[in-house]
């Protein structure tokens, strides 16, 4: 057996009414019931607007910017799910992650 990370992408401006959200939520619950044994974990994320990007600046420091990681030649290479008291603590942790040629996006998980 092998493990896979399945990433969900969606248009944040679509399906914003309560009925659509309800429908999507029900769909996820059904998916979870049907495939429970195969699922190792999963989370809904806060919108991309709440993301913060951390990049090494090449001289020992970091630049911190508002918004999601803008991919150009970088590709998603891995992930950590971390617990932190607040965004400062999460960013401090993120800075410890090796990122020689890219950076990390810190995105809050939506509380259930």
């Amino acid at each position, binding site marked *: 057996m092998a493990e896979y990370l399945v990433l969900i992408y969606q248009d944040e401006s679509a399906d914003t009414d309560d009925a659509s959200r309800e429908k999507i939520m029900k769909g996820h619950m059904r998916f979870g019931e049907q495939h429970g044994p195969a699922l190792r974990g999963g989370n809904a994320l806060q919108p991309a607007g709440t993301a*913060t990007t951390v990049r090494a600046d090449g001289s020992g420091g970091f630049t911190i910017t508002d918004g999601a990681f803008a991919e150009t030649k970088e590709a998603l290479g891995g992930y950590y799910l971390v617990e932190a008291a607040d965004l400062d603590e999460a960013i401090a942790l993120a800075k410890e992650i090796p990122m020689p040629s890219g950076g990390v996006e810190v995105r*809050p998980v939506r509380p259930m």
Partner: protein
Amino acid sequence: MRPGRPVDVSVEAAVADAHRREWAYVLAATVRVAGDIDVAEECVQDAYARALTTWPAQGIPDRPAAWLTTVARRRAIDVQRRRATHDRFLPELAGADDEGTEPPGIPEIADDRLRLIFTCCHPSLSPEAQVALTLRLVCGLTTGEVARMFLVQESTMAARLTRAKKKIAAAHIPYRVPELAELPERTDNVLTVVHLVFTTGHTAPVGSDLVRTDLVEQALYLARMLRTLLPDDADVAGLLALILLTHARRTTRLSPDGSLSLLSEQDRTRWDAAEITEGLGLVREALHRRPPGRYALMAAIAAVHAEAPTWSATDWSELVGLYDLLVIIWPSPVVALNRAVAVGFAEGPGAGLKALDELAGEPQLASYAYLPSARADFLKRLGRIDEAGAAYAEALALTDNAVEREFLRARLDDTGPAAI
């Protein structure tokens, strides 16, 4: 005459006054208890509404801000408790604590505003959002006023502020002064924002007033708070010095008839001597660091003007030297423009004009009224009156500040046929 009516009018006036002057203080003190800016804003609104119904009977309190803060904080605690019983999984609120029942002392309020400014200037927020949030939440400007400063529609600014506040809440941006180790890198942003509040107030980009004194005073207040927090920081000392040395000239920037009064025309005996003395001391301190930072250099430039007994006694070569240093660490076309003006006074209008014309292609200066207006001044001194008139007309087309427009129009008239 209906009895009681004058009382109501005075209560309404007192509430309006407390809203204009103390809203930001009350908000900052409430955010810490509420742990959420939107909730805090609602609680503060409720407290003002309560004042309107309570003060007519109970009288206006001696310290309205303390009364409003106590009411708003109590309300925030209620909201918190209700939420907590509804949702046991309420995430730990960043920076919230249990001190809310205590009536606030003034130093505590000052600390609260300092906390709030570090939240508003968090590096994970976009630079525009940082300034907008600080103006709205720490300086207490209305959304409409902030929108006018950014030259955007009120609805656009409201959406920008909402998005930023949503990020603060969802990403748990903490509400606290950073720890000592992080302070230097976090203070940089705060200084940038305070400097922007100051420059915005010093020459309001639009409107009928040249100076928004309230904004300059907010910037002065914030810079003083930062100085208390970081007494050894050269950048903080430099920024505070810059604000003081400029603020010291506030009463002389306008003539009695409301028109713009240039540095060369100002009555220097009316400059605020106490602020100049304080500013000069801070400049010396800020310049001790090598190499000096940009606020220290800008303050040193303001200090040269403050120390000159008359316009003609200004040490222009000292100014050119300071601008030479400033343009290296802060290569902005606006700094280069100011340097060119100083060159024009140190070495003559011909040299100044030459330095200005080297900046003609700068895209950042394309719509900047000071470039054609400085050119016009040098052209006039060189006796090239027609060209000067054209340059004043160009400057006039580029400025939206009513006082500056009036000044330029008068200069333009001086170059017209009537003046010859």
